[in-house]
């Protein structure tokens, strides 16, 4: 059962990655080429998944959109983890006053929705995929900070940390060699979950026009452009793609945890 979910996760997220890689070298049509006479073509030949209101080939857009999807996920999660994890570990290792400051700052950031942040950034820097990814990343920092802090607190109460302290190992070394490896499984799961959240959030921002400009093919933008009366299938296709990606990375998270935990190795 456990294995099955991991396999489904691998297949779904694998599909997205493969689509992104394929689109780097080949797409059936130019994903930006407007072709008026071919608009609203139903799925068939030569347009396998049909065309949208501008006559752009949906299959090509879908493939290229996978790139954006992955890029947003990677940038957002990396940004959130790089800032949130060290903060959480630092706070969790018992700096009480710093801990309070970080916790309150976290609360404030947590109360600020990613959407608002994205509007802010888009207004200041102009709407683009990068602004959207950065906005989502910043909004995800508190999630990583809290997760890292909670996990660090658990680890810090273990005897092996006490043993390390008693052995004269400096705090920084303990953080890197003993705390980080022990909280990595938890963070891995969080990273995968946040990855899918980021994909979903970016789709939402694109749909609202706060992410990619018209010319950039993204799945959220495709949802936005779909004409529900003329060709409802054009809304279903990117929707399914988003669902597959979100499901895939979520399920993958469970597998990642097992892989990162040496205690689980012999159970596999």
């Amino acid at each position, binding site marked *: 059962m456990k294995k099955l979910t991991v396999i489904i996760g691998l297949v779904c997220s694998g599909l997205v990655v493969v689509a992104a890689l394929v689109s780097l070298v080949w797409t059936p049509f130019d994903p930006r080429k407007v072709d008026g006479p071919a608009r609203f073509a139903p799925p068939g030949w030569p347009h396998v998944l049909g065309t949208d209101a501008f006559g752009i080939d949906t299959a090509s857009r879908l493939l290229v959109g996978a790139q954006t999807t992955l890029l947003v996920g990677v940038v957002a999660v990396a940004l959130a983890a790089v800032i949130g994890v060290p903060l959480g570990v630092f706070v969790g290792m018992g700096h009480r006053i710093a801990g309070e400051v970080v916790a309150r700052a976290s609360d404030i950031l947590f109360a600020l929705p990613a959407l608002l942040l994205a509007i802010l950034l888009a207004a200041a820097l102009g709407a683009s995929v990068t602004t959207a990814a950065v906005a989502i990343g910043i909004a995800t920092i508190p999630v990583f900070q809290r997760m890292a802090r909670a996990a660090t607190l658990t680890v810090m109460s273990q*005897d092996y940390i006490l043993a390390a302290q008693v052995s004269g190992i400096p705090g920084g070394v303990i953080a890197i*060699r*003993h705390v980080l490896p022990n909280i990595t499984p938890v963070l891995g799961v969080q990273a995968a979950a946040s990855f899918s959240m980021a994909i979903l959030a970016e789709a939402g921002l694109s749909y609202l026009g706060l992410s990619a400009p018209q010319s950039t093919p993204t799945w959220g933008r495709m949802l936005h452009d779909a004409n529900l009366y003329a060709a409802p299938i054009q809304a279903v296709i990117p929707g399914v793609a988003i669902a597959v990606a979100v499901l895939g990375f979520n399920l993958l998270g469970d597998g990642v945890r097992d892989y990162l935990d040496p205690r689980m190795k012999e159970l596999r």
Partner: protein
Amino acid sequence: MSVLRVRDLTVSFGRRHLVAVDQVSLDIEPGQRLGLVGASGSGKTVLASTIIGLLPDNAHVDGSVTFDGQELTTLPDREFSAIRGKDLTMVFQEPMTALDPTMRVGRQAAELVALHSESSQGTTRQLVVDVFDRVGLDQASRIVDAYPHELSGGQRQRVIIAMALINRPSLVICDEPTTALDATVQAKVLRLLDEELASVDAACLFISHDLGLVASLCSDVAVIHAGRIVERGRTEQVFHHPSHPYTAGLVATASIDKVRPGERLPVIEDFFDPSTVDSAPPSESTNRPHRRIRRSR
């Protein structure tokens, strides 16, 4: 000169200054093994934490702890770190949790060596294998590459003892090192600890509530009750002719084999009324606090 010298040590916690260790004084000579015996909550672990500098922030320490002539209670963290793990080490109670589950045990031991000396990686590995071999781990060269979860409880405790002794310390603090092990493994680990302490000529503060263990390992024993050392002396002397009623109670409860069938089991209160101690004012001489304690029956 004593390895460890504790003078009038008082440790209290929190704003209300709840006293955990009260006016304790003790000495450990080089190579000497002192057993510290007491019930749960008597302050033995707090005493050990104070010596090794692991008290939480809300603890207040009065008095002095000197190790090799160096005052520890006021020593800055950085200098303390240079002593901990080298000259002053600790063996923990729980072999299941005292090793980092994500690190190979050999690397954990090597980390200690590398931290306190400047040896190359190759010689460090050989040293770790040698020490693992000496503590009776079969196939030591294989075990250094094992993760803690791949080892049994006894093997892990051997690893922990090896790690405590690898830098040839002058004092090892053992906090109930065998309570988590079953009786046969316990005996083996204890014998090993005995031999290895002797081979590196390390002194030992052995904390336990098991009088039998203390008797088999330690030449001297100190009995702690409610944060105070109530009795101290040679092990045979203290256990066979206890002068303090609390010690007499401890010894009696530990030798239930002397109780005949049908007879009531002895409890410490048969010998000693704790209420007389708790309400007593602080004494000037903690060496003979039993003067103020009356026998309840």
